[in-house]
């Protein structure tokens, strides 16, 4: 109900949110985009555009691979707007891409994604730590050395115990329900450990030990080659135990970065001002150009667009792209279009086909959906080729390393579906005249509603009649589409869904949506339809692989295996149309966050 006005919420990491979708007309055009992304990859590797003279020209997509308006000028105020509330400013609980991007201004995690344009942003570099993690014991133990002389905004020095405490408190999911849950899954915590508030005084050295003030060692249950990705999570930003206020800490954060909070009014607005205890000498990544950041929350989304266009506001901090009304304005006005970037996201909008609901227990009936759906209308429903995304035929988006292009169910030359093949599949399934089933969608997301309507229209000609069922997004996975008994009892054959990688990596993208072991009988999981024993085994093998290059080769076969079972209908690889801030310097899209890099911005 709430989002009748703004099309989308924010782009939650991992979790699924409404955004838009873009469509490409031909396969040729699709490969052209892939080629573009690849060249961006080649171009971003070696050069550091940040200091290059001139920088990119102000034109459409200029900010994708290069820095626009490079400058080292200090001072000024950056004004940001958000159409919703911040998910949580607490580094232990925040779980949105924009919030992670922004948190680096007031907190220093052990590692971070490199603040650089294009593909270079996918590189993990040391932040609070002196270097990347040192794995021993087959990836079961990871050691980090912490920089000396890093200070909190109250002047006390950051020690290893502050990082340890920060990670431990974040495992208390009763206090911080919405944060990522990787640490409690991987760390060798004592049985029944419930975080430092509830399990006071419990010795946790089996999970995290701090041999001295500047060394922190993580002990895992099993080997995990990608632990450095966890060390870049905001959950490793230090929290001084003496100043921790639990669920209230989001309003009383102690900063370890170049900025600290001022005038914080929950759900309304806050400011970041310079933290004079921050020392540039300890920090190779941050330039800290502006004097101040002003963030207003709960601003009308269309109003944000208009104010960014006029220059009154610098940036839509949620980074989800312009509203539908601004879409035609921006795309039809050459001057405005030159002021926009069309970013690709490591996010897939898809539809689950539930094999637990007859007749989808028969693979041929699932294939009928794969062939029968009009992929072009999926793209239009999600917002078209610019604010929606590119036509998808795989689970993994091209941005995820290890992505391989394949198409098991070609949708015909104009991407409108292959009705002949769909009818064949229906006959093979024993339902030559079609059947009736239900489709779930999140009723407060206009784009999912349009998608469900598109399915209904596209499948009608082959005799598959859909009844649409809208559910509130707050309960969508816990009570409805992600609740296995509910799905069976209410015959939810199809359900709109979506997933974005927590970081650009096969594990980060696939594990939560194709591993059958994440399905919970009481509901709550995004995976509703994939229960393939093969896939679980393949995932385990890939996770244990510590060689990055070898590991990346293991993801595409998993992707293919899931598509063979036809339990997921891939819709579009998400894209968003972002308005480039007019009055700011050092503007570029970070591929790690798929939006402007908030760490590098300055005022012209």
């Amino acid at each position: 109900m709430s989002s009748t006005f703004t099309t989308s919420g924010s782009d939650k990491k991992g979790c699924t949110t409404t955004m838009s979708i873009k469509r490409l007309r031909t396969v040729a055009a699709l490969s052209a985009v892939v080629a573009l992304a690849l060249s961006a990859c080649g171009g971003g590797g070696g050069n550091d555009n940040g200091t290059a003279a001139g920088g990119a020209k102000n034109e459409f997509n200029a900010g994708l691979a290069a820095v626009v308006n490079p400058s080292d000028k200090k001072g000024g105020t950056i004004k940001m707007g958000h159409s919703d509330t911040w998910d949580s400013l607490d580094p232990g609980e925040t779980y949105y891409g924009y919030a992670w991007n922004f948190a680096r201004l007031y907190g220093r995690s052990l590692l971070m994604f490199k603040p650089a344009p294009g593909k270079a942003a996918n590189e993990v570099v040391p932040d609070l730590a002196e270097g990347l993690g040192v794995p021993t014991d087959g990836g079961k133990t990871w050691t980090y050395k912490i920089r000396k002389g890093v200070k909190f905004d109250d002047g006390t020095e950051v020690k290893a115990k502050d990082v340890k405490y920060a990670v431990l408190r974040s495992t208390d999911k009763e206090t911080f329900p919405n944060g990522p849950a990787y640490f409690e899954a991987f760390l060798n915590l004592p049985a029944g450990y419930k975080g430092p508030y509830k399990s006071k005084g419990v010795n946790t050295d089996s999970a995290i030990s701090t041999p001295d003030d500047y060394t922190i060692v993580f002990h895992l249950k099993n080997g995990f080659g990608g632990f450095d990705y966890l060390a870049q999570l905001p959950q490793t930003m230090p929290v001084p135990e003496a100043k921790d206020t639990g669920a209230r800490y989001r309003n009383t954060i102690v900063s370890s970065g170049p900025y600290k909070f001022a005038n914080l009014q929950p759900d309304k607005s806050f400011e970041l001002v310079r933290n004079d205890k921050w020392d540039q000498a300890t920090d190779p990544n941050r330039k800290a150009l502006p004097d101040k950041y002003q963030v207003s929350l709960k601003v009308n989304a269309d109003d944000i667009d208009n104010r960014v266009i006029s220059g009154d506001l610098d940036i839509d901090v949620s980074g989800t792209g312009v509203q539908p009304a601004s879409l035609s304005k921006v795309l039809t006005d050459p001057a405005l279009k030159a002021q926009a970037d069309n970013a690709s996201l490591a996010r897939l909008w898809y539809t689950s086909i539930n094999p637990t609901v007859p007749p989808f227990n028969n693979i041929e009936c699932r294939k009928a959906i794969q062939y029968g759906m009009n992929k072009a209308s999926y793209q239009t429903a999600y917002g078209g080729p610019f604010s929606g995304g590119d036509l998808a035929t795989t689970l993994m988006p091209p941005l995820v390393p290890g992505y391989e292009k394949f198409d098991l169910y070609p949708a015909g030359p104009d991407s409108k579906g292959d009705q002949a093949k769909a009818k064949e599949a229906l006959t093979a399934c024993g339902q030559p005249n079609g059947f009736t089933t239900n489709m779930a969608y999140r009723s407060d997301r206009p784009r999912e509603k349009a998608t469900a309507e598109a399915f209904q229209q596209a499948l009608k000609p082959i005799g598959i009649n859909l009844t649409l069922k809208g559910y509130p997004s707050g309960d969508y996975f816990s009570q409805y589409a992600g609740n296995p008994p509910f799905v069976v009892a209410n015959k939810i054959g199809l359900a709109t869904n979506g997933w974005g990688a927590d970081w650009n990596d096969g594990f980060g993208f696939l594990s939560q949506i194709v591993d059958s072991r994440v399905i919970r009988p009481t509901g709550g999981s995004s995976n509703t339809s994939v229960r393939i024993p093969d896939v679980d085994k393949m995932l385990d093998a890939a996770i244990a692989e510590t060689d990055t290059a070898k590991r990346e080769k293991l993801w595409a076969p998993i992707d293919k295996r899931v598509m063979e079972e036809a339990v997921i209908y891939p819709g579009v690889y998400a894209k968003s149309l972002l308005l480039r801030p007019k009055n700011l310097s050092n503007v570029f899209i970070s591929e790690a966050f798929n939006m402007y890099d908030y760490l590098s911005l300055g005022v012209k």
Partner: protein
Amino acid sequence: MRKIEGRSLGQIAWMRLKRDKVAIVGFVVIVLLILMAILAPLIVKAIGHPPNEFNQDLIDTQGGTLAPLGRFGGMSWDHPFGVEPVNGRDLMSRVIYGSRISLLIAFFATLLSVTIGTVMGIVSGFFGGWVDALISRLMDVFLAFPLLVFAIALAGVIPDDAFGLQGDSLRIVLLIFIIGFFNWPYIGRIVRGQTISLREREFVDAARSLGARRPYILFTELLPNLVAPILVYSTLLIPTNILFEAALSFLGVGVRAPTATWGGMLSDAVTFYTMPHFMLWPGLAIFITVLAFNLFGDGLRDALDPRSR
């Protein structure tokens, strides 16, 4: 027209009403709207564009704006009201179909309110004492509820399958219940007031003194005298309920997609405020319908109670 004395109150009212041109116009529009709602499938068949049919070939998908191609929201002979952005559904047939939901829900919700309100009002006014006190307090409670907030909440928590119904039929029944059930105290208060004043009048006293029993008095003496105010307020409650239904649909708790409702269409149009044609047609449909009922209701009131003129 000489035999004035031979006419009943109803006949007099009818005479007055006939002379009220504006009210008659309202009445004619109402009849046309009802016909349109009943015949919607036939009309739309004649237009040739089912309300849920996608016409994405009329949408600018290549340029990415997803706006209807052509000027004025894609208006043409084929699509006189234009088409929706994104999926290109025909606006005219959606507006026509929207009338069905609007009128259906408004009529039955009104019926429900009037039934509950009349019974409660009569009981309260006629029996007085603790019955009256109880019912009056109950009305106070209902009137103290933030109605719309409450309706949204209730419509939001009811699952998709309940009470042996599902889909549109469940939503329609639910909306009728919510709108009707929460509106009865308004009519209840009016009926109560009328009943109290009638109770004290001579003819009821007369009946009572003649030994008439209570139910007899209720049905033969009171009810006929309550018909006029109930009729007037029912006519005036219908437009209120149309607006209420539209508001609920606008807030996203009405009938589910893809069924067309006026409020739902307006809600869809919000994100496309740069394309005013999209909000214009459903908005106009609500306006004309509500206005017609208000005009007729006003005329009816004037006819039945000339003092209010």
